């Protein structure tokens, strides 16, 4: 079954999904995502209006929340200052203003489609990378490894070619040099390995069923004792 979400973006001529859009796709494939609302962006709209919109949302996530700009053409939102962590309601509006000042400094609307206010899912989390890219010899290939901002430094990632079985995912985890991060670690219980397996299998199904995806990346995939959550995502289609 091909993705309806992907078809929708394709029809609109969108080749690169922003974080909010990418997570809509992940949810369609049962990959757990944080509670979040997307706040409409308007040039010159004050922070207080975003707060009103946030509070008016049906079931807004509880504090602390992460504010992040949704911007399709920005590869790393944090690199352009597009992220703020907000601990309470009073911090919300000023944080939005600061964030928009930074992102729109150099370019009038910063290519922004909206502001994401998402639940903080970092509790007892170990950051994994779950991704896919197209290899010339193997076609779409799924990667799983130690995630976060140092991915390119540690390069602790395993690759498998779909179709992927649960045993493949467990073997990927076993083969990681950093596998001990996933076990009981600094007082935190071990991560829910079954949830990691489910997420990888769902992700592999997403990639297999939608060959127009040339690149997809969940980093970090927050692996916790009580499940996994896709804390950031990027999807590029052809």
């Amino acid at each position, binding site marked *: 079954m091909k993705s309806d979400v992907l078809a929708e973006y394709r029809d609109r001529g969108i080749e690169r999904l922003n974080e909010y859009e990418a997570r809509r796709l992940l949810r369609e494939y049962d990959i757990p995502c944080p509670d979040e609302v997307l706040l409409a962006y308007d040039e010159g709209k004050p922070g207080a209006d975003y707060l009103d919109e946030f509070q008016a949302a049906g079931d807004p996530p509880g504090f602390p929340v992460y504010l992040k700009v949704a911007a399709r053409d920005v*590869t790393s939102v944090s690199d352009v200052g597009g992220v703020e962590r907000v601990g309470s309601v009073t911090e919300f509006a000023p944080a939005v203003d600061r964030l928009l000042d930074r992102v729109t400094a150099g370019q009038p609307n910063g290519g922004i489609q909206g502001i994401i206010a998402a639940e903080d899912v970092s509790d007892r989390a170990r950051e994994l*990378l779950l*991704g*896919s*890219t*197209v*290899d*010339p*010899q*193997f*076609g779409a*290939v799924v*990667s799983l*490894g130690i*995630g976060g901002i140092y*991915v*390119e430094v540690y*390069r602790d*990632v*395993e*690759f*498998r*070619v779909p179709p992927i079985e649960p*045993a*493949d995912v467990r*073997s*990927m985890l076993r083969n990681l040099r950093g596998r001990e991060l996933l076990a009981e670690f600094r007082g935190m219980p071990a991560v829910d390995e079954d949830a990691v397996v489910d997420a990888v299998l769902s992700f592999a199904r997403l990639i297999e069923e939608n060959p127009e995806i*040339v*690149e*997809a*990346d969940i*980093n970090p995939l927050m692996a916790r004792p009580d499940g996994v959550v896709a804390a950031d995502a*990027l999807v*590029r289609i052809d």
Partner: protein
Amino acid sequence: MRAMGPLEELQPVFDPDAVAVIGARRANGPGSFNVVENLDEFGYDGEIYPVNPKADEVLGRTAYDDVREIPDPVDHAVVFLPRHIVPDALRGCGEAGIPVATIVSQGFADAGEEGGAMQTELSAVADDHGIRVVGPNTMGVHDFTTNFTTAFAPIAQRGYDPVGVISQTGLFSMSFPDLRYAKFVDLGNASDIDHVDVLEYYRDHPDIEQVFMHVEGLGPGRGRDLIEVARATVGSGTSVMALKTGQTPLGKSKAESHTGSLIGEDKVFDGAFEQGRIHRVDDYTDAQVVNRALLDLPDMAGTGIGMITHHGAASIMAMDAISEFDMELASISSETATAVQELSPDWLEIDNPVDLGPATVVDAPTAHEVATEAVLADDAVHAMIASIHIADPSPWPIGVWGHIEAFEEIVPKYDKPVIVVPVGTEQGETRARLAAVDNLLVLDDIRQAVRALRTVSLDTTYRGGDR
């Protein structure tokens, strides 16, 4: 769709009834690169038809001006011509109804854009006529079971094991003194017949129980097919190992994602080989160790290793390797330990690895007999490593043969792999005597021994359909 199975379709590649040598040399002897002469010396007993318009005969056989003039059916053509006339020669093969051609000639995709275009032309001719092609840019085939070769240089005749080689170079036809293959093919540029095709043939061939693959790269999208066919091959009882070398440029160099920037094509092969139940080997030594281990040792029903040794240092090396390769140091039973304890001084507590040093000094034959029997009979032990002195002459008054006999008598009784890592600068005939024992392999290095057992236990699981 091709109606034939892989065995039937590739039979003329390895076992042709009649071969045409297009571009057969008139000269023979050293340095002549005469394929006809090599076929004769290799003992090929099918028909050989030299094709060379400048010759009347080659080594006593009528030479034809054109492959289409050969009056009898031919099922394999060896093309040994300058590259610009190869497509025409191949057209001739098609019109003569020849189903398989080995194109030895170089200068195609191996030689830049112009060569690449010529290879495309050649492939089009092959497709038009339904010819299966080995090469171009290849040594082609050597088959010790059929005495067929396409080589232009002499190949030493010798015995062989049930091993099939798939290579992207002629190098591996000669570079393994201990890997005695039955069938060898150099795919060259793999314009048509590739790893997957030959692996299917080996999978179905009753003479092949092990496949060695040398992989530089696979055709676009062929990676998935390789995984699938390798799994089926291993599932049918034929083990597969691969030496993957080199890097190819990445298709997607403009990747934005972390994954995209990380993708080292080589690391993808690690995962793919695991999915295909293919043992990845790192070098010649590795390849030859895995080759012998899979041929000479019985299945290994678990990961528990028992060890007997004369040296504590050897035990530590083994334990390091057991950790490295994810194997287990078997927890031996108290019966096993007691049997050896009775021959040992009180101050030495016997456990696994079994320190046989003191007991050996007292009575080497008895010590080895008792320990070998006890360790191999232990249910927790799935394989045994013995790091023992086989110095000839023996340092023990009783003579060297005493403890070797224990291996000869006991090891074949148990269906468990045993690897002996002999110690001693003069090993004399003892080494050969040990090597002749069933279920026993002699290796020179403890780490290699553990690595070999890891492969045997994995392969046992793979062939049983699990992981």
